[in-house]
């Protein structure tokens, strides 16, 4: 089966576009190249919307944009309807063609941003043997699509390249189990037959309970415990899945963070160093201030040294001459002479006494004011002189301390600079996100492991209770002769359920083995390292193992190219096992691969295109010179996607392969 034509009308950026996909003799590879944001992925969305009615590959930004083309909205008049149509023509072999048309009608109102959906239709057109056109609508058309590629299977045909990268990284066993269950189509057994049998069994048990109060009591307790057990089992499954996802996420983030410095720890250290630097700068400023004050203080002492020294000498001399401290108040004597009267006893001075006072006055060289001043000067001047002795030591100490702080600050700055150098080139935000993600999953893992342990204990205890109640219930049933027939029916149902479970197990196992064998064949055929791998194994617990030629399991250590190829091989194996023959459409098929693997992968895709239609949506950087060297010689169609100048419509430029 292959897609011959896709026609768009007013679908997002595709205003009026028709893409014809012709097949070349050897390869059926169709290439679309468009930069991010142009609308490449909307080819994938358009196919899904046309065939299944949804758009599963949306970016967050696109979700807010209406499906109706923006230019069509602009041109529409108030209250007028506009149709969005995607039409896919498929060649299903034997000259049979199906055309699927999905149409949605929107009404545009002036002043409202989003047009309102009025209704939608889905139809399929095909020709019968006589050449008549058969038109199937809605559910019938849906059934026809389901027959070509069922909705459950489409994820294995139309997907994003990222899926290949993640397939065997996150919840591997869960992914494989899900895929095997889908392919096995065991839904019929599990959901229809199994559920019906359980329901009948429950009804029969209810019937028995009516016959005896004892049976009713035990049956009711048993039913309650079984319900409880079912819920606990579901919880255990959920926790197991969450644990697996967390483990994969932790490993994935650790891979990404390998070789990258621990940004958070470095930033913490950087902040600490900055604080330390600030503290040291404050201390340095304080010390500098101290030195300034010291210099300021010494300035007056040194520059006035000769005055200080001279005054001290004079004071000392006066002391030696016993002029200091003064024994007689000079001013008092002067006052007595002046008044010719004794200021102390009040008697007038005789000539003889006056002469004596005058003689005394001539002997006193210093007045009490001067003596007092000199005495007051003495101590401060001596202190200043003493300070001079410490000048050199004090200055040296302060200078050394200042230099130490400068050295410390320099050292902190060097450390900060080293950290800055380490951090250059890393996107803080990205790394932080990985670290946060890893921490979140480490917490989740720990919590979920605790919860799993708790629920496993509850399960064990419930199972014992259920076993015990079942024994009691059966014992009571044996005692009750009236319900022999019901018991036979119950036995039958139980046996039938056993058969269903065993059949389910056998089908799942066979499907698993078949997929394993196909994956193995495809992978070993496509892999570029022909002598490295021995086989691919899908274990009974649905874990996938890639076995090295030397015999050891090596999936965890292979490069992204090999891992993506294994995922692609697995998907191709699922396709082949499912017996659906549909085109494979991969969006950004090599974006997560290294240069070397991109070339190898391009060769693989070319190989696949020799067997089935392969539609590849590349970004220009993905479609590098080396990739184009592989695909340019063989492609059937190559389109370049560009936005028109109004940025609301896309135009396709076909590059002919001559």
């Amino acid at each position, binding site marked *: 089966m292959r897609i011959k034509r896709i026609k768009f009308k007013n679908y997002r950026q595709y205003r009026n576009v028709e893409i014809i996909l012709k097949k070349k003799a050897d390869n059926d590879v169709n290439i679309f190249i468009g930069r991010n944001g142009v609308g490449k992925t909307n080819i994938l969305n358009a196919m899904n919307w046309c065939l299944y009615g949804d758009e599963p590959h949306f970016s967050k930004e696109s979700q807010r944009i209406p499906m109706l083309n923006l230019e069509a909205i602009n041109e529409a008049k108030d209250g007028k309807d506009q149709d969005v149509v995607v039409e896919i023509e498929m060649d299903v072999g034997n000259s049979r063609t199906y055309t699927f048309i999905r149409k949605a009608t929107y009404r545009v109102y002036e002043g409202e941003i989003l047009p309102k959906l009025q209704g939608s239709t889905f139809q399929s057109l095909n020709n019968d043997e006589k050449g008549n056109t058969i038109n199937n609508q809605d559910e019938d058309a849906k059934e026809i699509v389901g027959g070509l590629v069922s909705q459950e299977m489409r994820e294995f045909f139309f997907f994003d390249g990222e899926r290949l990268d993640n397939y065997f990284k996150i919840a591997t066993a869960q992914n494989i189990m899900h895929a095997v269950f889908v392919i096995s189509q065991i839904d019929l057994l599990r959901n229809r037959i199994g559920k019906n049998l359980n329901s009948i069994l429950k009804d029969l048990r209810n019937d028995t309970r009516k016959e005896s109060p004892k049976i009713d009591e035990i049956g009711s307790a048993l039913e309650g415990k079984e319900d409880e057990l079912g819920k606990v089992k579901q919880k255990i499954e959920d926790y197991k899945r969450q644990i697996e996802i967390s483990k994969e996420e932790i490993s994935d983030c650790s891979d990404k963070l390998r070789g990258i410095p621990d940004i958070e720890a470095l930033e913490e250290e950087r902040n600490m160093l900055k604080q330390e630097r600030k503290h040291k700068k404050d201390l340095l400023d304080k010390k500098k201030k101290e030195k300034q004050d010291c*210099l*300021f203080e010494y300035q007056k002492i040194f*520059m*006035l040294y*000769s*005055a200080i020294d001279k005054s001290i000498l004079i004071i000392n001399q006066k002391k030696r001459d016993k002029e200091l401290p003064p024994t007689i108040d000079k001013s008092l004597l002067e006052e007595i002479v002046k008044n010719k009267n004794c200021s102390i006893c009040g008697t007038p001075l005789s000539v003889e006494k006056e002469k004596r006072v005058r003689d005394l006055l001539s002997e006193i060289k210093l007045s009490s004011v001067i003596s007092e*001043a000199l005495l007051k000067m003495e*101590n*401060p001047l001596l202190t200043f002189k003493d300070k001079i002795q410490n000048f050199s030591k004090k200055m040296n100490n302060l200078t050394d301390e200042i230099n130490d702080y400068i050295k410390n600050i320099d050292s902190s700055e060097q450390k900060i600079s080293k950290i800055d150098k380490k951090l250059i080139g890393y996107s803080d935000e990205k790394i932080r996100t990985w670290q946060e993600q890893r921490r979140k999953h480490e917490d989740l893992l720990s919590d979920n492991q605790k919860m799993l342990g708790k629920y496993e204990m509850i399960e064990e205890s419930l199972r014992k209770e259920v076993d015990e109640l079942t024994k009691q219930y059966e014992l009571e049933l044996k005692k009750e002769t009236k319900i022999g027939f019901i018991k036979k029916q119950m036995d039958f149902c139980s046996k039938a359920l056993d058969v269903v479970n065993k059949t389910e197990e056998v089908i799942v196992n066979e499907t698993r083995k078949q997929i394993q064998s196909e994956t193995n064949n495809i992978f070993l055929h496509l892999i570029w390292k022909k002598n490295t791998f021995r086989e691919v194994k899908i274990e009974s617990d649905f874990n996938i193992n890639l076995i090295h030629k030397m015999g050891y399991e090596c999936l965890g250590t292979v490069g992204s190219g090999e891992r993506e190829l294994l995922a692609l091989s697995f998907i191709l194996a699922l396709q082949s096992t499912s017996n659906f023959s549909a085109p494979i459409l991969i969006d950004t098929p090599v974006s997560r691969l290294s240069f070397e693997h991109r070339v190898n992968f391009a060769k693989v895709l070319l190989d696949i295109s020799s067997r089935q239609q392969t539609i590849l949506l590349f970004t220009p950087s993905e479609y590098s010179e080396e990739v184009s060297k592989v695909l340019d010689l063989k492609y059937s169609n190559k389109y370049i996607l560009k936005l028109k100048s109004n940025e609301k419509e896309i135009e396709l430029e076909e590059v002919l392969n001559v």
Partner: protein
Amino acid sequence: MSEIPDRLNIDKKDRELYNKLDLEEITRFKDKGGTKTRKEQFIFAMAYAFNIGKKMPIDAFDGYFLEKDLHDDDRALIYAVAVYDTKSVEVLADMKAVFKIAEEYAHAGIILLANNKIPIGLYEIELEKELSGIFKKI
């Protein structure tokens, strides 16, 4: 005993020159982000000129700070300058004369300081060198 003047003066023109001391952190006035008082700046200028041996009479007196702000150690220095300058302790009996001497040195000092050619910010280094030189001589 002569009367003690209640203030110490500078020349009216010196106010502007004292503002130049604010350019250096070491001598900056406390209201301009520094820690030094008017009295400290005055003594600084007085000491500077005394060391050089230059004093200048004041043309127009302008009160700069109050006498009561002087501490004993400030007085000791001002008295010592007066004693040294007059080569006599008798001057200490005349506080007007003592302060006049101090004011004349400070007047000369502030003119010298304001006109020095040391780039702003380097005065501290120069002062340290100068003081070390004096210390060696002492």
